[in-house]
């Protein structure tokens, strides 16, 4: 249970970074934390204590595997996270070349 709660705490730390930090790069790091938290939670959901990795090498193996589906989901989620992180950093760099700052308090051409 504690291990699941620690995932949620990691999620909240990431959310805290996104909401309070003023530096664009730190906001992106906040997103990375949230993604780690969710991927960790997925892996833990499929975990069964004392069971094998889900690789079938013989037909007559005993069926004692951890759940392989969350692992496949984590792989997909990592790829999507890579895409969003790359796009965010690209936009952050382009913002830097326009405004000469990463501080969101000074990036305010749009109102409200």
């Amino acid at each position: 249970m504690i291990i699941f709660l620690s995932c949620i705490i990691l999620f909240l730390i990431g959310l805290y970074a996104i909401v309070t930090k003023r530096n664009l790069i730190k906001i992106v790091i906040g997103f990375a934390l949230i993604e780690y938290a969710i991927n960790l939670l997925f892996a833990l959901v499929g975990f069964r204590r004392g069971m094998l990795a889900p690789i079938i090498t013989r037909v007559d193996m005993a069926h004692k595997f951890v759940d392989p589906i969350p692992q496949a989901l984590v792989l997909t989620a990592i790829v999507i996270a890579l895409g969003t992180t790359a796009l965010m950093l690209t936009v952050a760099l382009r913002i830097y070349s326009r405004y000469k700052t990463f501080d969101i308090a000074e990036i305010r051409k749009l109102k409200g």
Partner: protein
Amino acid sequence: MTFIPLFFALPLAAAFIIPILGKIAKSIIWIFVTLVSFTLFILALYGVAVTQQFPMIVYEMGNWPPPLGIVMAFDSLSAFMVLVISILVFSGSIFSWRYMSHYTGTWKFYTLYMLITAGMMGVSITGDLFNMFVFLEIAAISSYALVAFGVDAEELEASFKYMVMGEVGGLTFLLSIALLYAKTSTLNLADMANTLQVVGQTPFFWLVLGMMLLAFSIKAAFVPFHSWLPDAHPAAPAPISSLLSGIFIKVLGMYTTARLVFNVFGLSRGNAPVFFNVLIGLGLLSIAFAGITALNQKDYKRLLGYSSVSQVGYIMLGFGIGNFYGVAGAIFYILAHALGKGLLFLTSGSVVNATGTRDITKLAGVGENMSTTAWSFRFGSMSLIGLPPLVGFFAKYFIVLGALKAGFWWLAIVAIGLSVLTLGYLLKIENNVFMKKGRTKANKAPFTMRVAMVFLVVLIVLFGVGFQQIIDFLVGPAANALLRGVEYANLVFGSVGVSF
């Protein structure tokens, strides 16, 4: 051989072919994209025709049967969403040719355009929760890039703001998928509906549902979470604004909410009245707050952006009422608002293309030469305000009828009363831009732009005059597909392997 996977496979394939065409034959990209979107439109019409006879078509990806494999579950509601998406994608692609000629690297634009189409199509027809997340992210990531397409300072800022909000929503959705998987050990929507019936309405059930509602509220821009939309939608090129405001927020926010709440979580007004009252509250808050804010806007597209937030509230209101007329009205409103707001954003693109500014105080006199644009604007706004016999009137009529049938007479009065806000902010553009005499020089809109606008005007009039047929063949079956509740699961498992 079934046509279901073509809805997302065709635009995905086009998205990979366009960069190659960009190297060898730039001039035919636009024709290629328009042809692909027209094919999608025809396929969507065929899909609507097929669902008249077969309420559910299940396609097993890679021949893995559900619940193990990923399935595409194509029912009347999916057919409806796919049709609306393809209409706006088609009109947007016609409009793009001349509008995008000022930009460099248009092949990148068209690649992203096809990817966002594939994402939205996939969300509307998938029958698998994680697959829904993947398609949702495909659409969302393409939309972040498209909002920043002009790479001006404002556009980049709007895109980053949108990305932060949108990703918080997307990741909250992913977290709720992880929690649901932990409880139900399945990802198939139909199987999950069956399992959740066994679990019952425990605190865990409400926690997950609350997280999903939060995620989709951000995606659909309901009022406490709307701040990104009035920045992001105006920053995008006009055909993309039209697509984003017209259908994107509804597929990613409204369709997903409705599908999960009705068909997977199995809620109805009968067994969860408090939840449906929350939906009504969210809707009313959006209509009132964003409508009043829109009255103060001076930027043409920003005003329309606030208007979208306000209009989406009506759709949530319809779903919250929860009886047949309310839900049918909400679905009808998705169609009406997609056509109306899509058209209004195209007129904004036409005006910006001719004058180069979006400030409505500087646009007086534009209406003299741009009569097609002006009349398109008038038709679009009359439909949104709700004047008969245009399509917007019948949509609003059904929502009000639903409120009366459910006994919420105060809600009916408030919903009609708040239409005054719509009238107010749209008249502001009409007065300042198209009616007022002024010295702004503007040439006639190019031919293809006028074709795109007239196409949507014709549909607005046609769907309004023929509303009985729309209700019978399009909106009614779609509403029934939602109100079927968890019968959805039996229908999916019963339709596996049925050929048509």
